[in-house]
């Protein structure tokens, strides 16, 4: 030891990098079932598939293995979340668009389009039938609001009852801005009316500033 030996250092680095490569290769193998799940965000594989393919940048051995798996992945696809049950794509597209605006009453933070609750199924069926009858989107919304209230709409209509909901935040913001303005003016007045410094005080301030 003692003398600095660059080649020995590099050799050691190379060994450790190879070990890292081996480790990443193993990670790649472990992740491969998750990769094969395809583009399903809520699939059982917790790791996000694309990162598994792009992760082993530093290793030579892991990259071909993992990316080979990833290339095969898109061919295996799982079914979409709520399978359309009709052969009327136009109607179904309208239903989907409309039901994204509607709230599921059971799981309240999910839209009617994404909810798997039974009531959501029933409501989708009801909406589908209404659309099939030739009702407009607005008529369908009115139908649901009459029975379940404004709560079913993700964007409630503008009316006296919902004014607070729509304008409340802006009123709060305006109030805050007004409060801030008032506060700043108070401060400025305070600064204006503050007694002027005497010569002795000024000299001391200058001294402090110099230090």
């Amino acid at each position, binding site marked *: 030891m003692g003398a600095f030996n660059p080649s020995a250092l590099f050799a050691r680095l190379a060994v450790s990098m190879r070990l890292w490569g081996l480790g990443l290769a193993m990670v790649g193998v472990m992740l491969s079932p998750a990769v094969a799940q395809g583009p399903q965000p809520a699939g059982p594989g917790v790791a996000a598939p694309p990162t598994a393919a792009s992760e082993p940048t530093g290793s030579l051995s892991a990259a071909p293995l993992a990316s080979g798996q990833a290339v095969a992945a898109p061919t295996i696809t799982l079914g979409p979340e709520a399978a359309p049950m009709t052969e009327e794509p136009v109607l179904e597209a309208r239903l989907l668009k409309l039901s994204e605006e509607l709230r599921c*009453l*059971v799981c*309240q933070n999910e839209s009617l389009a994404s909810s798997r609750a*039974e*009531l959501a199924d*029933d*409501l989708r069926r*009801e909406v589908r039938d209404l659309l099939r009858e030739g009702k407009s989107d607005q008529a369908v919304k009115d139908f649901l*609001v*009459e*029975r*379940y*209230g*404004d*709560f079913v709409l993700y964007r409630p209509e503008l009316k006296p009852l919902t004014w607070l909901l729509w304008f409340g935040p802006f009123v709060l913001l305006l109030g805050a801005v007004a409060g801030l303005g008032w506060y700043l003016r108070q401060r400025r007045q305070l600064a204006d009316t503050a007694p002027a410094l005497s010569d002795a005080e000024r000299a001391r301030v200058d001294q402090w500033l110099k230090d």
Partner: protein
Amino acid sequence: MKKFLIPLVLFFGLVIFLALGLQRDPQAIPSPLVDKPAPAFSLPTLDPAAGAFSPAEMQGRVWLLNVWATWCVACRQEHPLLVDFAQRHQVPIVGMSYKEIQPQDVQAQGMDANAKLQFARERSQVWLSRYGNPYVLSVIDLDGRVGIQYGVYGVPETYVIDKQGVIRYKAVGEVTPAILASKVLPLIQKLNAS
């Protein structure tokens, strides 16, 4: 002094605001159907010999509509109260068996409409004979469509309907003794007097 008071007052204001928010039930959604006529329907009842029932038959009486199902746990909790109520008061309770057949009832899935109705009747009758029957009759809403007309989104739900057939009150979830005493009974008295 004032400087310390302002944030303190603001803080307590926030605490009161949030405390009130915590007391509220997020599942309770005010029903727009209150003070609107009860939607009309015509449904078969648990009694195969009786014909279809429609709310128009209750015209001139104050009555309760109670949405229930045998698979509904909260309904079973609420049930003794309804049985007791039916014994004490002269107010008819009409039951509405809501979506009695569920996806998990595998044996009923392949049945035709009549067999399904029969299946629902039998299971409901068994349930009622075990836990008591507070209903003057119970209609069967197998596909839940009448439920949607009434804005049902969770069983049990209970409606108070007046002599003119107007919904005057709706309770979502179990009717507790407190709700019965503070809301339902006074309302019924008022409606019966008018």
